[in-house]
């Protein structure tokens, strides 16, 4: 069990809901992954007021907690407005906060992010900021009122997996008590297992599952990888050694060298 803002969540995998071949396949993938939180974007669907209502009700019917997001917002104002709209539409104060700074890399605008996080935290939101692995930015986000951090491990949708293990390790080390969720950049289940082995609390991903040839099986694979990585972290892994160590004891053998 894992807890976010007082809510116990059975799964440490959070899923995005975009780009699936169909809502039916999305629903099957959610079930197969065992996830307890899905994120949903509001921005693109907003054309025409509540015209996206039908899709949102499909999302609601998945039976998981909903973490609305501000995907595609490029300014503080846009992100704050979208967050408020999301609170109304989904009846939750949870918000995954994205303020995009670069069109090509979809890198967060960390300055805008901190500002928007401060505004939303003051307004009573439970803010999940999509950020980089920068420690100073992370500190500023915590000062702004965030209780969870969501660092990327590579650009959104890139499927590169963790590109800077040192930074991720140091982030885990610096914020031992803060729930850390790796958001964005994971491409395959082994990537998810790797960051979970580092001690991250959860992972959030979308494209790697939605764009797989078989999203439902891929969702199941990611669910297992997240569990495996977490269990490994909790079990105390061996550190690598330079010399071979036989798994069969050598004591009692004729020659001991």
């Amino acid at each position: 069990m894992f807890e976010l803002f007082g809510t116990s969540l059975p799964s440490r995998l959070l899923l995005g809901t975009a780009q699936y071949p169909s809502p039916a396949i999305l629903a099957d993938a959610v079930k197969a992954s065992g996830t307890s939180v899905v994120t949903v974007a509001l921005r693109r669907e907003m054309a025409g007021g509540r015209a996206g209502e039908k899709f949102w009700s499909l999302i609601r019917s998945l039976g998981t907690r909903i973490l609305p997001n501000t995907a595609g917002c490029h300014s503080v104002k846009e992100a704050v407005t979208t967050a408020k709209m999301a609170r109304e539409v989904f009846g939750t104060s949870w918000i995954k906060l994205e303020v995009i700074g670069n069109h090509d890399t979809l890198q967060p605008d960390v300055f805008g992010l901190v500002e928007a996080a401060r505004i939303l935290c003051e307004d009573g939101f439970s803010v999940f900021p999509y950020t980089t692995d920068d420690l100073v930015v992370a500190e500023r986000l915590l000062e702004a009122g965030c209780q969870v951090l969501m660092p990327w491990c590579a650009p959104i949708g890139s499927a590169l997996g963790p590109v800077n293990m040192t930074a991720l390790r140091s982030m885990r080390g610096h914020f031992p008590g803060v729930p850390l969720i790796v958001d964005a950049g994971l491409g395959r289940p082994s990537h998810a297992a790797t960051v979970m082995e580092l001690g991250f609390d959860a992972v959030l991903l979308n494209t790697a599952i939605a764009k797989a040839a078989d999203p439902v099986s891929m969702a199941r694979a990611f669910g297992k990888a997240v569990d495996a990585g977490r269990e490994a972290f909790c079990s105390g892994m061996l550190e690598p050694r330079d010399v071979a160590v036989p798994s069969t004891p050598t004591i009692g053998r004729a020659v001991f060298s």
Partner: protein
Amino acid sequence: MRVLVKGAGVAGLTVAFELATRGAAVTVAETRHSLGGNASWFAGGMLAPWCERESAEQPVFDLGRNAADWWDAVTPGQVTRTGTLVVAAPRDVGELERFASRTSGHRRVDENTIALLEPDLAGRFRSGLLFPDEAHLDPRRAITALHDKLAAMGVELRFEADAPTVSGFDRQIDCTGMAAVDDRLRGVRGEMLILHTPDVSLSRPVRLLHPRFPLYVVPRTDHRFMIGATMIESQSTGPVTARSMMELLGAAYALHPAFGEAGIIETGAGVRPAFPDNLPRVEAHGSTVVINGLYRHGFLLAPAMARQAAELVFNQDGTKELAHETDRQRRSD
């Protein structure tokens, strides 16, 4: 048998044809004042079952496989069988690999072959995929040709038919798309542009892959190009948004800079009716047969759905299980 078809989109007109050829006395009732304005009117008109398989499930391929033959037979001269060309910028060549691995019926083409196929794209792309068996048509011309054919066959077409009386008909076919009353249906908004430029000539639909802004360009006559299409989970029929237009134009410009000088002669938005699995359905409810959920595959799927509906009407076989239903059950088992 007297049959009332409600809706004069691609689903309504194709089923009217299938019914009329089986000897039914068919009346088509459309609430709009003319053929235009519905989702079919804003369609791309690609008959591309192989390419669509990239994101669509197998039933879309199976049902759409013979669509080009149907349109060719029923509306002679409307179908162009020159295949589909799929390209990606050198930076996005991974997208091409992904597309190739999800689809079949294609062959790799290099820079030289692309130049032979589409001289205006010479030197712009290093590699691509050619789907040689695919086809395309101009939806508005095809719909108009089908309408004229139906009229010639004696099918009665009533426009501005607000509440057509159901009396006097043995069966009804509901092809009203998003206007149908069905809680399972949702709308997926698609926005498109029509550009005109004498500086570009294309012989076949071209799909430009991009991780965020995939685009297709379908050549029409007279150097007009249909540029499409966004996919937004929204029922809104409002005008094209500035953002969508920028994305579409940006992608068109990336395909060929001459599109930067093109005139924008039309913008449009349609709402595609879709069921949760994005697969089409033909269902019998009493004396009414419903065709709906053609989603982004109207011209591709309408002939097969029309045939199924006509068979339902004539065989009175209301329990007939449709191909995709069994397929889906198998998958979720």
